């Protein structure tokens, strides 16, 4: 038993022993911190007092920038790219751009002039005028401002519009498209349901967002067309005639005053005398000997029928005969035998009297008319006398204006002048118009119809705010001048960078001070506890075990500090956020998420903890190194 009693224990295996030693040192380190709790508390408070404001500062920076960013990222207005000028975009353009992945939403728009529409509660007398804007599936302006995409028979109003009209979502609204036709005011009325009212952010203008179909119908109606689907009557989209110039034949030469008068308020810019030979070359017709010929022209563009009418009025009483002409007639005839008719084509619409004065057979279609609704009158031809098809009743014709190819049939009204095919001037005028905007020939009705030219504008939203710059660049590369608010995000980025820099300046000063205090305090503690540390060595703790003593203490202090700092941060952040809550309400509404002026991303706090502990670890190394200089023999001597 005694032998047993004096047998010393065998040393334990090494790894377990190392873990045990670490646990022992940790216990000692913590016990020491607890024993000197006042000092520990002061140090913890000092470090927390450094870290907590830094967290607040970081939170304020982050919260502010995020609130700004959020407003930007969330507000579709910053993703909008608007055309800076009106120009035509054909359906193919919309198809191509609509397919791009960066494009979140794209819809054609109509001309601003056609987009004003009256609106009122049903049967109410007062009419409010709103801007009618087309929308469609995926429109972020509607979706992200509390609206729903309107279906057929529905519209979405801006807040201003809804307030002005005194309607709410779900109410019925009467839209009144107005136009003036033949001097008479007309109104096309349709009833729609208000699907939603947009939030304030969507804009401060009185606007009504409607499906593209309704918008185009309104545009057509305003242009004088009928919209059978809505019970709106009006004309069919008959193309108008346009010309490149006018030949004027007068019995007496025009005076200088008369000639000058021809370019006033007519849109025409020149009037030159034309020789008989030039007239013949241009028309294929002989000049009657007792006439003087003048050619009226324009700098660029087309001469409209109204100009022709004005010139006619100005020359009233001079016995002038006006022959509007088209420079490049793309009209070709296919004869029965398959041969092309080689003769030039001239448009000649003159009255029987004038025809007689010119020594020509009067054309069956008579004088020039502004009204082009009668297609039978338009589709006639006097073939050159002696041509193969002169005897046929009809002839196939083909025109190739810029827009495409038109095939139609002309009635052969008889033989005309030798060497030239004569058609109504208006027909060539219509084909001239077809080079400016699309015109179709409707086989069923046998009429020319004005086709949609495409659209005069677009509404485009990038999918993400970062796509704006690229889209803007690509659109400009296509020659489309656009307006975008892409710089707004860049301004925030600059602000963020600046604030981050300021934060780090403050942080470096604060952290340096805080951890200098920690280093000094740990180092002083080691100095103060030389004897205790020596006793620990004497009791058998290895040099490297005692080395850990200040490291454990520093890490523990830092850990407690950061926890306290985080608690302080959370409490202060709550107070700050409450103080700013009212100001943030607008931003919150914009972002549809709770906005906080002082907020850190979730990951930041764990990172702060880890960073603090690591810095504390490094700080305690000086003190730890100091412990290795302590000799256990020191504890033995007690001077």
């Amino acid at each position, binding site marked *: 038993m*005694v032998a047993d009693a004096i047998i010393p224990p065998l040393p334990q295996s090494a790894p377990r022993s190392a873990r045990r030693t670490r646990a022992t040192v940790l216990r*000692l380190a913590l*016990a020491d911190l607890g024993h000197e709790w006042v000092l520990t508390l002061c140090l913890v408070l000092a470090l927390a007092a450094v870290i907590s404001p830094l967290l607040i500062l970081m939170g304020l920076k982050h919260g502010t920038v995020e609130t700004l960013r959020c407003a930007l990222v969330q507000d579709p207005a910053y993703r909008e790219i608007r055309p800076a000028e009106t120009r035509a975009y054909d359906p193919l353009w919309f198809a191509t751009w609509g397919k791009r992945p960066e494009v979140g939403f794209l819809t054609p728009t109509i001309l601003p002039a056609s987009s004003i529409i009256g609106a009122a509660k049903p049967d109410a007398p007062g009419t409010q005028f709103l801007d009618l804007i087309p929308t469609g599936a995926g429109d972020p302006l509607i979706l992200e401002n509390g609206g729903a995409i309107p279906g057929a028979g529905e519209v979405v109003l801006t807040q201003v519009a809804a307030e002005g009209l005194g309607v709410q979502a779900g109410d019925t609204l009467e839209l009144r498209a107005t136009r003036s036709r033949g001097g008479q005011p007309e109104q096309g009325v349709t009833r729609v349901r208000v699907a939603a009212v947009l939030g304030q952010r969507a804009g401060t203008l009185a606007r009504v967002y409607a499906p593209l179909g309704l918008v185009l119908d309104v545009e057509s109606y305003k242009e004088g067309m009928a919209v059978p689907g809505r019970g709106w009557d009006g004309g069919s989209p008959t193309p108008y005639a346009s010309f490149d110039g006018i030949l004027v034949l007068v019995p007496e030469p025009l005076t200088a005053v008369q000639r000058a008068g021809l370019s006033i308020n007519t849109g025409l810019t020149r009037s030159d005398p034309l020789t008989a030979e030039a007239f013949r070359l241009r028309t294929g017709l002989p000049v009657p000997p007792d006439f003087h010929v003048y050619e009226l022209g324009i700098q660029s563009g087309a001469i409209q029928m109204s100009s022709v009418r004005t010139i006619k009025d100005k020359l009233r009483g001079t016995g002038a005969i006006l022959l509007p002409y088209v420079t490049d007639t793309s009209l070709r005839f296919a004869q029965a035998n398959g041969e092309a008719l080689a003769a030039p084509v001239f448009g000649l619409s003159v009255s029987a009297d004038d025809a007689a004065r010119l020594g020509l057979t009067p054309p069956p279609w008579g004088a020039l008319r502004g009204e082009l609704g009668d297609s039978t009158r338009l589709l006639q031809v006097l073939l050159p006398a002696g041509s193969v098809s002169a005897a046929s009743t009809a002839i196939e014709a083909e025109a190739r204006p810029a827009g495409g190819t038109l095939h139609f049939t002309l009635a052969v009204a008889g033989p005309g002048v030798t060497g030239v095919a004569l058609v109504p001037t208006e027909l060539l005028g219509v084909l001239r118009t077809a080079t400016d905007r699309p015109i179709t020939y409707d086989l069923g009705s046998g009429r020319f119809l004005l086709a949609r030219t495409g659209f005069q504008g677009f509404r485009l939203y990038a999918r993400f705010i970062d796509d704006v710059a690229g889209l803007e660049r690509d659109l400009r590369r296509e020659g489309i001048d656009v307006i975008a608010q892409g710089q707004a995000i860049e301004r925030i980025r600059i602000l963020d960078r600046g604030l981050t820099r300021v934060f780090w300046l403050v942080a470096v000063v604060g952290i340096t001070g805080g951890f200098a205090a920690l280093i000094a305090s740990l180092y002083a503690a080691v100095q103060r506890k030389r004897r205790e540390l020596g006793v620990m060595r004497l*009791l*058998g703790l290895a040099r490297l075990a005692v080395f850990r003593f200040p490291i454990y203490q520093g890490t523990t202090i830092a850990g407690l500090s950061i926890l306290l700092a985080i608690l302080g941060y959370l409490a202060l952040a709550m107070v700050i956020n409450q103080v700013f809550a009212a100001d943030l309400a607008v931003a919150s509404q914009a972002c549809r998420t709770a906005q906080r002026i002082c907020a850190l991303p979730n990951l930041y706090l764990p990172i702060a903890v880890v960073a603090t502990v690591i810095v504390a670890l490094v700080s305690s190394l000086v003190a730890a190194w100091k412990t290795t200089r302590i000799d256990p023999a020191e504890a*033995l001597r007690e001077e």
Partner: protein
Amino acid sequence: MPYPGPYRPPAQPAAAYLTAAPVLAFENLMKSRGQGGVGFELHVPAFAVRPGELVALVGESGCGKSTLLDLLALVSRPTRCAAFRFQAPGGATGALPIDIAALWAAGREAALARVRRDHLGYVLQTGGLLPFLSVRQNLELPMQVQGLANVPGRVEAWAARMGVEGLLGKKPQFLSGGQRQRVAILRALIHQPALVLADEPTAAVDRTRARRIVADFRALARDGGSTIVMVTHDRPLMDGVADRTFGFTLEQVSDTLTRSTCREGVG
């Protein structure tokens, strides 16, 4: 290996140890120290402590007691010495003696530290208790450091032997000087080291109390199987208590060199 449990008095008389091989022994040891041109040499012709002994090193201050204690504590390297051995108690099989001189020569400080940890205990002048641990924690620490399982009741039993069982929950700062020394002695003995070195353990206590402390110290050490080397300036204190006493003789060799020789029974 756990301790055998609560303290039990040994069945054999203490004198039986005296015939065993020395725990620590050296011959012809010299340690020289020089500082500021003043040299000091300590000579020990022969030194040995046997298991269970209480050996007193008695001398005035400056005679080299602390220098010798450092040498015995294996924290100070002898300048010269012959056959410095430490016999670790090896139970039935018997461990080979450890050649301390060879370890010093080879600079194997880690091995020396291991010997210190496993076989030596210390009682410092003012206790050397860790102020941030309670008495119980202080007493448990040597066992924790050595990875020994704590047997329930063991600390209480040992504390009762030293008369400090009522102080276990207190921090050292609340103990009297005598209580503190008793706890310090207990801490040095509790893991039953082969050799306990005590440096003036009763310097802060009056003579009467000091005698009682030394008596308890001795009894407990012997029961636990530990050997004591105690340094003191107080010769009367050791009368009738120490098994052997070593004293110091000082001689001034020159203006700059003082030589101290330590011999048994001198002084």
